[in-house]
């Protein structure tokens, strides 16, 4: 926490709080999709629930950003009240660890589209392994579980990775991120 600037921490918490509300809003969407397609319904949009990790890490670019932002978002979700209750806290931390692992593997140096998509996919892998033991996918047929896994991987790459990058880039364009790693990088590119 020593090499974090206070403004980075406050911005990370604000992003987490905002996306906690977004996450809660997407829970009923998942419920409806599950009603149509069965347990795989959630996996189509699962990437949404990783997005704050990718945005925070992409903007701030410090070790821990992906994990902390997802954990704070999960805590806020619990505090605002939802049916999953405190178990959600643990799921959030596991998803955050997954996203964080991708950035750790690249040494916190590369923040291109590929890395961000990889991060979304790692969050999908971690959350799927947790879900496999915790919410009983073991009871489902093997082929179906594989299909769920692949769907979640794609969702993580696109909804978290690609959409997270697009949203962050749109924010950087407004100039509000000039004091953060992402904004500085954009300015450097612009000057060159």
């Amino acid at each position, binding site marked *: *926490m020593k090499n*974090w*600037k*206070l*403004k980075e*921490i*406050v*911005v*990370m*918490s*604000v*992003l*987490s*709080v*905002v996306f906690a*509300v977004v996450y809660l809003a997407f829970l009923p969407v998942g419920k409806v999709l599950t009603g149509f397609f069965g*347990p795989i319904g959630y996996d189509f949009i699962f990437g949404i629930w990783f997005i704050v990790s990718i945005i925070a890490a992409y903007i701030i670019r410090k070790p821990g950003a992906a994990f*902390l932002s997802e954990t*704070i978002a999960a805590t*806020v979700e*619990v*505090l605002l*009240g939802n*049916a*999953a*209750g*405190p*178990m959600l*806290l*643990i799921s959030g931390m596991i998803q955050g660890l997954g996203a964080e692992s991708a950035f750790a593997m690249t040494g916190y140096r590369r923040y291109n589209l590929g890395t961000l998509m990889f991060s979304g996919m790692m969050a999908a892998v971690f959350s799927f392994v947790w879900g496999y*033991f*915790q*919410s*009983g*996918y*073991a*009871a*489902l047929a093997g082929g179906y579980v594989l299909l769920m896994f692949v769907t979640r991987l794609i969702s993580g790459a696109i909804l978290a990775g690609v959409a997270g990058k697009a*949203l962050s880039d*749109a*924010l950087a364009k*407004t100039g*509000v*991120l000039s*004091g953060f790693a992402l904004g500085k990088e954009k300015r450097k590119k612009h000057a060159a």
Partner: protein
Amino acid sequence: MYLNNLNPSVKALTILGLVVALALLFDPVTPALFTLVTIAVTFLFGDFRRKYYLFYLIPFTIFAVGMLWTTIAFADAPKNPSETVGLIWWEVPREDVLVAVSLSFRVLAFATMSLLFIFTTNMVEFLLSLMQQLRLPPKLAYGIMAGYRFLPMLTTEFRQIRAAHRVRGMGQESRWKRYRRFAVPLLAGAIRKAERTAVAMESKGFTGTRERTFYRNIRVRKKDWLFPAGMGAIFLLLILLSLRFDYFSWYQGQL
């Protein structure tokens, strides 16, 4: 009231421990009785607006009832189809009913426990306690406190942006495009405000080191241990009860 004055860290860790313990088992009795105990404890020892509690509990109950119904209706072929229970005008296998009741009350037990915490805990006290008891870095804790404060401000901001767009004659496009039109200005405004808040905090001498004093000292007192001890004892008692009547089993991933 006891629950409101309870040390927030002790309360949070107790609830987290109980939730993890509850997640490991799977029987209809323990979660059902534990839900009732939790609600009773919340009402007896907590001070909050009763009406709001019910307001929060209703959606959870609807969710649990929905789960009860779908689990019974879409259950796998039961192992002992001959054992049935009459549900009003309908004969259903006993096994399916037990699984459905277990699942629904699991959800309700989780929900009532988080409601116990949410309704009797002050967010600021919780963060102060996390700093003082569980050594959360002050930089992070005060950062989160500032961020959490933005939640009500965002609603105002949202109305303002909507009004601004409306005066300029926008708002006829599809729902999806409308969300995109709101997302960027809303987030940009929040980030701008967050940066200003951080500068204000630092200019008033906030360094974020652990070597700091607190205006409000939050301690763990002897009577705080009553909560984990009492809830733990009740939980064990319920498990014994469930074992006695042969309902008990571990959670094996039932959906």
